[in-house]
C-alpha cells in the first residue's frame, strides 16, 4: 500500500476515485495524517483496513434486525432484550464498541419511539453499523426533539395523535435501538424472513418496520 493506485484499489467503495489529481482537501488531509501516524508507528495499515472491512462487511442493521426478529418470535427473548439489550445481543454473538449499554425501546399500539443524538451522532454500532448521513445531519438533530411528528410525517410515517411519540436523545453512553411493531400478516414467516423485513430506519424510529 505504498502507492496511491494500490491505496485506491484496496479501499474503493465505488463512490469516489481517489487519485493525485482528484484529491479533495479532506482526502489529502486524511492521507497526510495516515502517513504521519504510520511513520510514527501509532497506527498500522492492517489495523485501519480491519476497521474499514468491519464496518463495510461485518456489522450493520442486519444485526439489529436479527434481534428484532428473534424478539418477535420468542416472547422470552423479547423480555430479555427489553430488560438488557446488550446481554440479549451477546446471546447472538453481537457486542462491541458503542454497544455496551444498549437499551431496546419497543413500539406499541400507544407508543412510537424515535432515537436521536442532538449533541453529536451517538449510535449503537454493534446492531446498526455506522449511522447514515441524515442521522448525523444538522436538520435531523435539530428537528427530532422539537417537531418529531412533522419529521416523521416527512419520512412517510403519520403517527396518530393518540399514540405517544417518545423521543430518545442519547446524550450519555447509553445507546438506543427501536423494536418496531411486527407487521400484520407475518404469522407464517420464519425468523430469517422476518429479519429481512426490519430496516435500519425502523430501528431508529423513522419507519414503521
Amino acid at each position, binding site marked *: 500500500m505504498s502507492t496511491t493506485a494500490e491505496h485506491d484499489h484496496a479501499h474503493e467503495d465505488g463512490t469516489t476515485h481517489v487519485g493525485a489529481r482528484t484529491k479533495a482537501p479532506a482526502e489529502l488531509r486524511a492521507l497526510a495524517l495516515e502517513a504521519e501516524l504510520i511513520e510514527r508507528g501509532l497506527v498500522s*495499515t492492517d489495523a485501519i483496513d480491519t476497521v*474499514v472491512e468491519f464496518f463495510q462487511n461485518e456489522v450493520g442493521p442486519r444485526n439489529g434486525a436479527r434481534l428484532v426478529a428473534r424478539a418477535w418470535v420468542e416472547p422470552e427473548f423479547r423480555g430479555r432484550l427489553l430488560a438488557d439489550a446488550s446481554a440479549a445481543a451477546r446471546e447472538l454473538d453481537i457486542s462491541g464498541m458503542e454497544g455496551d*449499554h444498549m437499551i431496546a425501546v419497543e413500539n406499541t399500539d400507544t407508543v412510537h419511539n424515535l432515537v436521536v443524538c442532538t*449533541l453529536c451522532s451517538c449510535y449503537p454500532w454493534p446492531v446498526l453499523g455506522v449511522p447514515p448521513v441524515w442521522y448525523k*445531519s*444538522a436538520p435531523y*438533530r435539530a428537528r427530532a426533539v422539537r417537531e418529531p411528528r*412533522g419529521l416523521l410525517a416527512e419520512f412517510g410515517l403519520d403517527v396518530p395523535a393518540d399514540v405517544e411519540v417518545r*423521543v430518545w436523545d442519547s*446524550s450519555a453512553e447509553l445507546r438506543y435501538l427501536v423494536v418496531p411493531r411486527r407487521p400484520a400478516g407475518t404469522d407464517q414467516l420464519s425468523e430469517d424472513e422476518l429479519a429481512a423485513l426490519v430496516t435500519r430506519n425502523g430501528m431508529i424510529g423513522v419507519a414503521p418496520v
Partner: protein
Amino acid sequence: MDGIHDLGGMQGFGPVEDQGADEPPFHHPWEGRVHGMMISLGANRALPGSFRYAIERMGAVQYLTTSYYEHWMAAIETLLDEQGVVSREALARRIEQGRAEPEQRLDPELAQRAKTALTAPSKRVWRGPDHRFTVGQKVRAKKDATTHSGHTRCPRYVRDVVGVIERLCPLEPLPEGLPTRDIQPVPLYTVCFHSHDLWGEGAEDFTLRIDLVEPYLEEV
C-alpha cells in the same frame, strides 16, 4: 459550551434527506481511513482527552460546512497537536512537500486489538456515589449545568426545564472532566420531559427522554 453542535430545537436547517437503505457506511475511501485511524489510535491509547470536545471546538461555521468524518479528522488533528504528538505544522508540511502517501506498515497485533475493541463486550463498571434521586422524582436540569466555555452533555434545550426521573443508570464519568482527563464517576439518570415544558404550549405533543448525570440536575 453552547456551540453550534448543540442543535436540538434549532430551526432553519431545512429538510432531512435520506439517501435510502443502500447508503454505504463510508462515502469516500478516506472516511473509512479516518474511522480506522480513530479506532487504531484508541486501541493504542494514543488519543486521550475528549474527542467530542475537540469536535465542539471546531468553530461554528467550519462545523456546519464540513462533514461528519471531517469533524472526526479535525478532532484527531486537534488532540494530536495539543498532546505534542503530531503538530498541525507537520501535517501541513507533509501535504506541501507531497509526502501525503502513507507507507504500508503492518502490525497484526494492533489490528487484532482494533478488532477486539470493536467487537468485544466491555466489562468496565464505574464506582462512585449512590444515586441521590429516585424514580418518579421531579428534577430540574440546572440553568448553569454547563461550565460556560467547556465541554458538557447537558444540551441547552433542557436547561431550566422540569422533568421526571424515569430510570437510574450505571455511573459514568462527568463529561466536564474528560477534556482534562479528570475522571469523576457520577450517577446517571434517564429523565423524561414533556414537549410543552421544553418548547411551550404551542409545541407538538410528545415526550422526550434524555440521559443526564446527577450534577446537571437539582431538586424541584
